């Protein structure tokens, strides 16, 4: 799962970008977001994208996977492009670079900073929001492991494909249902554990 990979790169990486403090990276992200409102010139976004690629190439990160992930928003963009009258190659290039540059900025930060450290650096977040995000972050790894186990069991038992749609949907429902039950059970355990520890709405990161 891509999220697990990102977390692995962030926690085990030893590149120069990993050593930059989380606050500096968040300031950088703030600058990129502000530029979306203040700057429209193509040249700016092209330069930003090239700069980010140079960061990516020198930060000891998997280049192809992060570039591919930064291009994911282009699927949505393609839908909008398909409905634009008289679309020019420049418009396509302009939005593709603008969208990918922001996505790559975010990915570079997340791939080089463990999420708990990022959450600790975002001081303006309400404490229950930071606690909830941290809880979700921990839960992703738990549920991803459950989902993987269920998928393996499903395949080992000769899972029917799309050729038998009714059985396929029914079995998929059981498989997802199993993960939902695991989520419910573990959330109850987590709530009990938080209560026992005197949770006051804040997780100290």
């Amino acid at each position, binding site marked *: *799962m*891509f*999220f697990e990979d*990102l977390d692995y790169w962030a926690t085990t990486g030893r590149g120069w970008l990993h050593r930059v403090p989380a606050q500096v990276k968040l300031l950088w992200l703030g600058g990129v*977001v502000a530029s*979306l409102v203040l700057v*429209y010139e*193509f040249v700016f*976004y092209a330069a930003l994208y090239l700069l980010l690629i140079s960061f990516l190439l020198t930060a000891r990160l998997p280049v192809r996977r992060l570039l591919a*992930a*930064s291009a994911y*928003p*282009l*699927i949505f*963009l393609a*839908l*909008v492009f398909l*409905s*634009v*009258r*008289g*679309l*020019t*190659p*420049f*418009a396509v290039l*302009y*939005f593709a670079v*603008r*969208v990918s540059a*922001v*996505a790559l900025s975010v990915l570079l*930060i997340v791939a080089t900073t463990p999420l708990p450290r*990022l959450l600790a650096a975002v001081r303006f977040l*309400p404490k*229950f*929001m930071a606690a*909830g995000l941290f*809880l*979700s*972050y921990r*839960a992703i790894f*738990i*549920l*991803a492991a459950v*989902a993987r186990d269920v998928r393996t069991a499903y395949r080992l038992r000769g899972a029917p494909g799309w050729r038998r749609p009714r059985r396929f*949907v029914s079995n*998929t429902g*059981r498989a*997802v*249902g*199993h993960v*939902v*039950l695991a*989520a*419910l059970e573990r*959330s109850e355990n*987590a*709530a009990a554990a938080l*209560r026992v520890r005197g949770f006051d709405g804040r997780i100290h990161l």
Partner: protein
Amino acid sequence: MAHLHLPDGVLPFYLWAAGYVVVAVGLLLLWFKFRRARNLPVFARAGFFAALMVVAMSFYVAPLGYHPNLAALAGIVAGPAAALLACLFANVILALLGHGGVTVVGLNTLTLGVEALVASVLFGSAAFMKATWLRAFGATVLALAAATALAFAVVAVGTRDFGQIVERGRGGVIEFQLLERNEPAERESGSGAGRGEVSLARLAALFFGLGAVGWALEGAVTAAVCAYLRKTAPRLFPRAT
């Protein structure tokens, strides 16, 4: 599967800022609900359902980026408050994965939140129906249709200035016109009017055409999950007979 992750850099500032304002107001209301210790189970459930949604979204089923998002299921099983909070957590995490934008977390949360809320209300109000799977299917399909309509409205409003943004971005760059050879004829006939603008009819056909496939797929999966949960954990559906 009908949910569209709006990326950064396409929508204007006023729109995504409005999304954040609406979500901030919702967050304030939820804060009053979740600050008390007795609401811890709902809070924890929100955290785990957000994780479930993120995990579900990593399973792609078709080439166009279709994936289940389980927001409707979260609304049905976890309840509206936990589901809304789960949608917010999920969207923040997804934005960090480059799956949806940072600036549009508010709007994406609204889209997913409407899906969860509508599914929760419809499922709850159709308690007279005995077949849980049918209730879940209907609630999910209608919830996804509502969420798609909201996403369409956001994109329709947000892309009104599409052509102007491109014009502003052109500063100092030589343009390669796709339709350059047809320009004189277009100018004479007036068919060049509206170039660079989004055709709402075409956009609607794409959104609702592609979306309908997603509604059916996610509706079927949610129905199957609810049928399974009805048998294995009937406490989740107290009003079902």
